[in-house]
């Protein structure tokens, strides 16, 4: 309801002020202040050269054995889970900022990769996946024959 605002602020109701307030509310909602966790886990960086793609992801606390990496053509899919810490009945939690649960993320790579030669390693909570470009996809120089 708009009208109760009239009495509360003692000012003339203005649709502009209402819209401004609405805009503020929407901005606050979208700015992520109410969401303490990142919407995307894990965060990923992608590095590209002509020969291969390197994908790195920050996966602290994720058991490397639980990570599942699949590659199909030029789509890389990462999935896994992070176990929540389990508290015994007499333990009290003071802070809980680390998210837990299952995650799946897919990325479209700039070119098709050779799924047989993909190499992945996980060190210090950072996953590094190296995906070599498929042989068939590599740019090829075509010689032009000249006719005499």
């Amino acid at each position: 309801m708009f009208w109760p605002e009239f009495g509360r602020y003692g000012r003339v109701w203005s649709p502009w002020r209402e819209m401004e307030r609405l805009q503020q509310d929407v901005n606050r909602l979208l700015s992520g202040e109410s969401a303490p966790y990142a919407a995307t886990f894990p965060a990923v960086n992608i590095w590209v050269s002509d020969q291969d793609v390197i994908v790195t992801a920050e996966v602290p606390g994720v058991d490397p054995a639980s990570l599942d990496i699949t590659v199909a053509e030029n789509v890389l899919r990462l999935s896994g889970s992070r176990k929540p810490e389990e508290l015994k009945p007499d333990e009290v939690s003071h802070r809980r900022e680390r998210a837990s649960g299952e995650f799946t993320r897919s990325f479209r790579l700039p070119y098709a990769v050779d799924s047989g030669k993909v190499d992945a390693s996980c060190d210090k909570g950072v996953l590094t996946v190296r995906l070599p470009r498929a042989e068939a996809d590599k740019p090829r120089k075509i010689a032009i024959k000249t006719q005499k």
Partner: protein
Amino acid sequence: MAEKEIQKREASSPVETERTKSMKVFIPRVDIHETRDAIVLLADMPGVDEKSVDITLEKNVLTLTGRVQPAAYEGYRAAYAEYEAGDYERAFTLSDEIDRDRIEASVKNGVLKLTLPKAEPVKLRKISVKSA
């Protein structure tokens, strides 16, 4: 109207400490829980191992510092970026008395686990009565 270019920056008081190295510093996310005889802290610090983490306890302030060696790939261009590598730093004020000599820390898969045992209160001494 163009804004005036700022030549000098006013310092905040107390002066905020800065690092000599121009590198971003991040606040690690933590979980803290209290068991019967200890406070357990878990901090997400991807890129940190047991050699590159420092834990100091001064008076009642516990400071966690983690140094990260950012990965650099020669000949590659960054096509997509969601995170930046940087050091970690966070400090907590501890309310309970902590037994400083028995603090344990370990790092696994980029997660720092810190166990801060509570100092034992003066133990009750039981005096057994010998029968005559």
